[in-house]
């Protein structure tokens, strides 16, 4: 079943809270004009709340949104290759989490201490591992995007964040305030969990 704009924009807000129309448009792959119209409509119907051009879901809208995924993504949930790629993603996700932890903390004589980025060799090694992992994961991203073309955006953003980190702007590994590798990865994970109707396991 085709997903209506009204669902897609709210879905975008579920992934990226406090996003403006521009950011929602980028995330869900709809022209910004259509996103603005759909957001204005959602605000009118009490499904979203606007503050200074940024939007959040209204609490009730969240619940009804959660109920909509099975309707719009039943085909995807039955798509064996998509499901297999999703399961592959969950496996790489375990690796990514370890990697991000190794980025933020380092092992000093068997003890975990915060990585204060004073050891360049350690940082380079982790970014190298991230690049290696990305190259393997990218094959999964391609299969996910084959099943649902708008997921390509995550693939592009992940590569962009990785390349910035590789070029020395190390905040692009995991800074939560920007679309860092970890930020985008986590949003993609949230997206996939919603599409597949699964819940996160910590």
């Amino acid at each position, binding site marked *: 079943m085709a997903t209506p704009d009204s669902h897609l924009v709210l879905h975008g807000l579920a992934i990226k809270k406090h996003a403006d129309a521009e950011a929602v448009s980028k995330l869900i792959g709809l022209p910004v004009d259509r996103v603005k119209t759909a957001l204005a409509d959602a605000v009118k119907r009490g499904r979203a709340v606007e503050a200074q051009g940024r939007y959040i879901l209204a609490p009730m809208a969240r619940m009804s949104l959660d109920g909509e995924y099975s309707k719009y993504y039943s085909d995807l949930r039955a798509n064996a290759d998509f499901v297999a790629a999703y399961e592959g993603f969950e496996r790489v996700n375990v690796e990514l989490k370890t990697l991000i932890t190794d980025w*933020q*903390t380092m092992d*000093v004589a068997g003890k975990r201490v915060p990585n204060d980025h004073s050891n360049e060799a350690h940082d380079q090694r982790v970014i190298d591992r991230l690049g290696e992992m990305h190259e393997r994961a990218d094959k999964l991203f391609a299969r996910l995007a084959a099943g649902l073309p708008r997921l390509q955006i995550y693939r592009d953003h992940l590569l962009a964040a990785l390349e910035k980190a590789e070029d020395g702007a190390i905040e692009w590994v995991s800074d939560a305030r920007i679309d860092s590798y970890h930020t985008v990865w986590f949003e993609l994970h949230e997206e996939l969990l919603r599409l597949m109707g699964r819940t996160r396991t910590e």
Partner: protein
Amino acid sequence: MARSLGTWTLALDGSASAEKSLIGGKAWSLARMRELGLQVPPAFVVTTRACTEYLRQGAEPAELAAELAAGIAWLEAQTGRRFGGGSQPLLVSVRSGAAISMPGMMDTVLNLGIDDATEAALAAECGDPAFAKDTHRRFLELYATIVLRGTAPELDRAATPAQWREQIATAAGAMIPATAVEQLQAAVRAVFESWNSRRAKRYRQHNNIPDDIGTAVTVQAMVFGNLDAHSGTGVLFTRNPLDGSPAPYGEYLPRAQGEDVVSGKFTPKPLDEMNKTVPDALAGLLAAARVLEAEHGDVQDIEFTVQQSKLWLLQSRAAKRAAPAALRIAVDLVDEKRIDIATALTRVTGEQLAALMNPRLADSDNGGKPPLASGEAACPGVGIGVVVTDSDEAERRAAAGEDVVLARPTTSPEDLHGMIAAKAIITEQGGSTSHAAVVSRSLGRPCVVGCGENALSQLKGRIVTVCGKEGRVHEGALPVIKPDESSDPRLAQFMQWKRAADEQEERKGTP
């Protein structure tokens, strides 16, 4: 430092010196250790020139196969072991190494040379068939991922090596070569190929490194720390990397191979333990530690193996260190006249100084009073505020000027605004890799995770003090102290140097 084995390879035999541009950084530091009179396992190098030639003509130089054989023969003569056969098999590691280290280069392949026959020989030699089989499995996994560039399937430990090879062939769509010699050739080629990996190419482009300088390949004999009671493996720090105190610090695992240290299967023992079984190796190790620290003018992290009482140094590099150690070591090395003040100033980063001056609890034990909740320490620091269980509420109340502590069962991207607003973050579920832990570290918010189901919801509305270092949530607002120069003479000394340097820099800046 090296002797030619032909046109494309050099044996690192301690003779005439070789350029770093020819043998790469890793081989160069091995050769340098030999020059300093230290024992490193024998190694030979396929030079960067061979790589350049491979990249130019798209195939190995015709003589390379024969020179690899000569290199292996040299390693056999040095070690008294045989490659691909015999009762004492020679296994080697294969690693990449350009003159400038860069990402995307091939990872190290270990234990190359093991096959069904050498596995049996190794099992007999060390009296540990399980170790020999595990070595075989680890080699096949590494080879599949690194050389065949496939996703290694999970190899069933109970299966036979033939079944493992078949499993890998199916998953990787390529066969593992039948003989050790062919495996070595393929591994060398894989190093050459990695020169043109996406990451390596981007790195060179970004850092203006020429594309045609190539990488070298180091082939080194493996040593075994598990052959008998007089064998073992360990790591030594020339100073304590946690607090910086000057005594060497390290761990030793008797009768174990390098991977065992990482696996956590065994509990390592303090270095003194070596006095019981391998006292000469310990003396040699401590002497080597002094030499290497003097050579590099910095605290070293040294990996070593003792094989039948003989000490072998595997690697020495600048040690990772915690902030207190960074400060103490930098100041001490100046006092010992090992480095100058300008160098010392580069050894402690701004972030480390900030960490040293982080507020901490005046009494980390809170007078023995049990905490309200405790969990895994995810991000150090102290945060005090009223417990709020909703991210929107946290943001709203923080915006109104209140100090809040965000308590959640778990966090997800939807909680980011609440996490940014909070003074500290505590969660009921999840460990050190959970979203809450990752995000709080990236925000620098004190964080305790995994306090237990329903451990936090009842704290709603109470004032608490979160200690992210110990992983505890205390009742009320506890007194904190902010360390400064008056509490630490080394910090005072360092800051004085820093101010003097900054002033000088300023004077230079004004015309």
